[in-house]
């Protein structure tokens, strides 16, 4: 089903906010299977790129197009926000919500949600108020809520920032299971180790422009831009 939606193509896409250009122009095509990792310093435009592709931010100039209608593409995607958004509901109802929106019965949705909550390690917190969860628990909930709909494309904006080593591993395991079932991952991260573990290809964003887009092995051996090389060395890149 992934092949139905990909490639996604950006042509001269520009995002402006608050009167200035914060991303672009971007020319890019993402296709194939696996994981695309988006790297770059703080404020470089990673979140904006993901939002642009998902359709949350619109291209002021240029365009973003999926293989097929925008609506169909959007419906087959899920997005995990950098700061997870908790609804004023229980953990269970948060995870069940996307299924309810898609027309599942309350009972069906809850059964599936409970299954995902358990897989993600929130099985003991089903009836807790989601807004009372810790930062790491929120990120887990957001992952469960995204995966419960079995999206073809999953965007993740730094999904393991607040997690400890053990939880990060658990989540990476769940992500590789999702990959096995054919989900395409597009993920921003600051964690170079994580990028090495997960990436099939890497996009490097610097000051709102894409300075590298390479296969992962090539990127980590010989990054296509100086800023990317400096970033990998651990130098301060602005």
């Amino acid at each position, binding site marked *: 089903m992934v092949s139905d939606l990909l490639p996604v193509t950006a042509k001269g896409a520009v995002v402006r906010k608050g009167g200035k250009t914060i991303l672009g122009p971007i020319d890019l095509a993402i296709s194939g299977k696996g994981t695309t990792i988006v790297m770059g310093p703080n404020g470089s435009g990673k979140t904006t790129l993901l939002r642009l592709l*998902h359709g*949350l931010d619109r291209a002021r100039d240029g365009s973003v197009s999926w293989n097929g209608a925008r609506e169909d593409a*959007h*419906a087959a*995607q*899920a*997005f995990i*926000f950098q700061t997870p*958004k908790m*609804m*004023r*509901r229980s953990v269970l109802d948060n995870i069940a*919500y*996307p299924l309810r*929106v898609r027309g599942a019965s309350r009972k069906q949705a809850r059964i599936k949600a409970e299954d995902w909550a358990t897989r993600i390690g929130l099985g003991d917190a089903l009836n807790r*108020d989601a807004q009372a969860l810790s930062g790491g628990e929120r990120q887990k909930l957001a992952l469960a809520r995204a995966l419960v709909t079995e999206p073809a494309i999953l965007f993740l904006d730094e999904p393991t920032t607040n997690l400890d080593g053990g939880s990060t591993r658990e989540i990476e395991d769940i992500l590789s299971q999702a990959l096995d079932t054919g989900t395409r991952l597009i993920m921003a991260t600051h964690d170079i180790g994580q990028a090495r573990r997960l990436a099939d290809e890497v996009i490097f964003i610097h000051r709102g422009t894409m300075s590298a887009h390479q296969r992962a092995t090539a990127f980590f051996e010989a990054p296509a831009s100086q800023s990317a090389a400096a970033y990998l060395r651990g130098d301060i890149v602005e």
Partner: protein
Amino acid sequence: MNDLWRGLSEAVRLIVSLDAALIEIVLRSLQVTVSAVLIASLIGLPLGALIAVNRFRFRRATIALLNALMGLPPVVVGLIVYILLSRSGPFGVLGLLFTPTAMIIAQVIIITPLIASIAHQAIRDLWAEYHDLLISLNTTKRQRMATLIWDSRRSLLTASLAGFGRAIGEVGAIMIVGGNIDHVTRVLTTAIALETGKGDFGLALGLGFILIALAIVINLTIHTISQTERGGRW
């Protein structure tokens, strides 16, 4: 001071003796106000949500108008409803003037803007919080509105209770359209106005204390009910 004490003892006497006239006007007060709050909530809450979620041409103007209408002088509302319902008015044939229905109509007009305005604020704040998530999850407009209304139900309850507070204590409009007719349209507030006019301050105050107690009891009851439902989170 003396009058206050007489008022209190009058209130106690009326309640303890289960005064038939008192019970009748308390029930009518509740009937009129609760009906008005229900109708105004049915209009005002979705209206607030609609304005919060949808972009349309006269949105800002609508919000400004709503806020202005919150301050409507009840006497003027009463006067206008009176003219509309009076025998020679456009709705005269319905024969509604000097009935509880006329009082409900006036109160609905007075409190709907208040309920809609508070609901709008609550839902707008929640919409800002939920916006990206609900867009990302591909929700329809209807689903967004339903989700926002449901998840802000506690604030919306507060909106309705504010409407209740305004309506139960209102006298100007319902005096005009209801006429304070004994056994027909007399309610707590109009009875208080009447007794005050007659100079019977003890009875007027007694009724006043009962009115205040009634408002407190209703608010507490509803808060307690909604609290147990939420597991006492707020």
